[in-house]
C-alpha cells in the first residue's frame, strides 16, 4: 500500500520542473532540435560529413559573437555568417588540390578565432562565450521555439520533396549527375540546412556539442536498419528522445543540459552497439554450425 504514495511522489518530482516556463521552453526546443539534428544527421553520417557539422558549429560561433558585438539580431547575424561559411566550405572542399578536411579547418578555425577576438576586444561578458560554447537553457525564449520549429518544418519539407534526389546524390553522385540530378545544388542546400539547424539549436546544445547530436542518433539508427528510408525516421526519433530525456536528467541530476542530452544519446549508441554486436556474433556462430 506504500507504493501508491511513492509513485505519486515520483510523479510529482518528475512533473516539478514543468512548473517553470524556462524548462518547458527548453524541453520543447531540445526535443525538436534532437529530431531535426537526427534527420539531417542521416545525410551527414552517410556522406561522411561528420567533421563538417563540427566545423560549421565552430564557424557559426564567429557569427554569434559578431551579432552580439554589433547589436544585430542573433538569427540574422549568425544565420548569414553560417550560410556563408557553409557555402565557402562546400566550394573550397570541391577543389581537389586542397581537400575537404583542410578547407573546413581553414574556414571554421578562422571564423571561431574571429568570434573569440571580437568578444575579448569588445569586453562582452565571459558568460556570453560560455553560453554559446556550452548552451544555456535559461536563455531559451519563445523566439527560439518558433525558429527551431520553422527550420524543422522547412527541412522536413525539403527532405520529402527532394527525397529521391537527395538519396541518389548521397549514394551515387556520379550516376545521379548522368540522370540530370543537380548534385552540386543538393550539396549546397544541405550545407544551408545544416547551417540553419546549427544556428537554431546552438542556444540549447552549444557550439561544442552540437556536432555530436548530428552524428550519434544517425550512427545509432544505421546499426538498427539497412534501409535509408527507415533511418530517416528512426534517427529523428532517437534524437528527440535524447533531447527530451537529457533535459529531464539535467534538471534532476543538476548537470548541464547539453552534456546530459549528448550523454543520453551516447548511452543509446552504446546499448544498440552492444545489442547489434551481440546479434552479429550469434549470426557468425550459427554460420560455424552450418
Amino acid at each position, binding site marked *: 500500500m506504500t507504493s501508491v504514495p511513492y509513485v505519486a511522489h515520483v510523479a510529482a518530482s518528475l512533473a516539478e520542473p514543468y512548473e517553470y516556463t524556462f524548462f518547458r521552453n527548453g524541453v520543447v526546443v531540445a526535443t525538436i532540435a534532437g529530431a531535426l539534428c537526427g534527420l539531417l544527421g542521416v545525410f551527414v553520417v552517410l556522406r561522411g560529413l561528420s567533421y563538417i557539422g563540427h566545423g560549421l558549429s565552430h564557424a557559426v560561433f564567429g557569427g554569434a559573437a559578431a551579432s552580439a558585438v554589433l547589436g544585430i539580431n542573433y538569427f540574422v547575424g549568425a544565420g548569414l555568417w553560417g550560410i556563408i561559411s557553409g557555402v565557402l566550405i562546400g566550394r573550397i572542399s570541391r577543389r581537389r588540390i586542397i581537400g575537404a578536411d583542410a578547407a573546413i579547418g581553414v574556414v571554421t578555425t578562422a571564423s571561431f578565432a574571429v568570434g573569440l577576438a571580437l568578444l575579448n576586444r569588445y569586453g562582452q561578458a565571459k558568460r556570453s562565450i560560455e553560453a554559446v560554447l556550452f548552451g544555456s537553457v535559461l536563455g531559451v525564449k519563445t523566439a527560439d521555439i518558433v525558429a527551431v520549429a520553422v527550420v524543422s518544418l522547412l527541412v522536413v519539407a525539403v527532405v*520529402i*520533396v527532394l527525397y*529521391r*534526389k537527395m538519396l541518389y546524390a548521397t549514394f*551515387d553522385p556520379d550516376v545521379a549527375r548522368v540522370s*540530370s540530378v543537380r548534385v552540386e545544388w543538393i550539396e549546397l542546400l544541405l550545407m544551408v540546412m545544416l547551417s540553419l539547424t546549427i544556428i537554431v539549436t546552438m542556444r540549447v546544445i552549444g557550439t561544442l556539442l552540437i556536432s555530436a547530436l548530428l552524428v550519434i542518433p544517425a550512427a545509432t539508427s544505421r546499426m538498427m536498419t*539497412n*534501409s*535509408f*528510408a527507415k533511418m530517416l525516421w528512426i534517427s529523428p526519433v532517437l534524437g528527440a528522445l535524447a533531447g527530451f530525456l537529457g533535459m529531464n536528467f539535467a534538471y534532476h541530476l543538476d548537470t548541464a543540459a547539453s552534456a546530459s542530452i549528448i550523454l543520453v544519446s551516447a548511452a543509446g549508441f552504446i546499448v544498440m552497439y552492444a545489442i547489434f554486436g551481440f546479434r552479429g556474433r550469434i549470426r557468425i556462430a550459427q554460420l560455424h554450425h552450418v
Partner: protein
Amino acid sequence: MACAYDNALVLQDVNFDIAEGEFVGIVGPSGSGKTTLLRAILRTMKPVHGTITHRDGLRFAYVPQVETVDWNFPVTVMEVITMTRSRSKWWPRTSAAEKKDAETVLEQLGLAGLGGRHIRELSGGQQQRVFIARALFHRPELLVLDEPTSGVDVGTRHEVLHLLSDLHDSGVSIVLTTHDLNGLAAHLPRIVCLNKTIIADGAPADIITPSVLEQTYGAPMEVLIHGGMPVVIDTGMHTNVKPIRGVS
C-alpha cells in the same frame, strides 16, 4: 573532339560515332581516357574542343564500376532501382505502378524476390545485375557501362556478358569500357582501341593484332587464334619479368 582536366589534355582528335543498335567496347591502358570518353558521351564532361551530338530525345543510362559502390550504404535493391525516378514524383513513397515496373525489371534480370534485400547481401553477379536493372528502369536506348567485369569472378563475367548480349538482341545500343581483352572485348562486334586518341576501330578479328595492341598499350603482345577468336598473350611477361623464386 578533345577533353582536358586542369588544362592537361586527356583526349584529343577523337572522332567516332555509335549507330543505333551497336555494341561497342572501348579498350586501352589505365589513364588512356576511357572513362573520360564515357563522361563526354554521357554529357557530364564538356569537351574543350569539338562537340558530342546525341540523337534528339535519346534516352541513355549509365552503370558505374561496382568497385566504386559503397556496399555498406543502407539501401535495399528496390530503393536502388526506384531512386532514379527523381523527376516524376514529389511524394517519396514508391507508387504501386513504380513498384510493378521495378519488379518487372528485376524479374527480367533474374532478381525476382530480392527487392527487399540489402545490396551487400547479394552475390557478385546479382550486385552487378542490380545496377544494370537500375539503368534499365529508365528504359534506355543507349546503355553505357564502365568496366562491367572489373573485379568479378569468371562465372559472374560470363553472366554479365550473356545478359548484355540479350539486352543488345532486344534492341538496346551498348557502349562499355573494359580491360578484359580475352574475356569480354574479343566477344564484341566492334571495339575501339584508345590511348589519348583513337588508335584503331573495327571488328575484333581486324583490330586485335600485335601491332595495334603494342601501339595501344606500349607493350609487346602476341595474338593466337583459338576457335576462330583472337586470344591475347602478354609476351612481356615471358621475356622481361624474372621468374619468382619457387614458382616453376
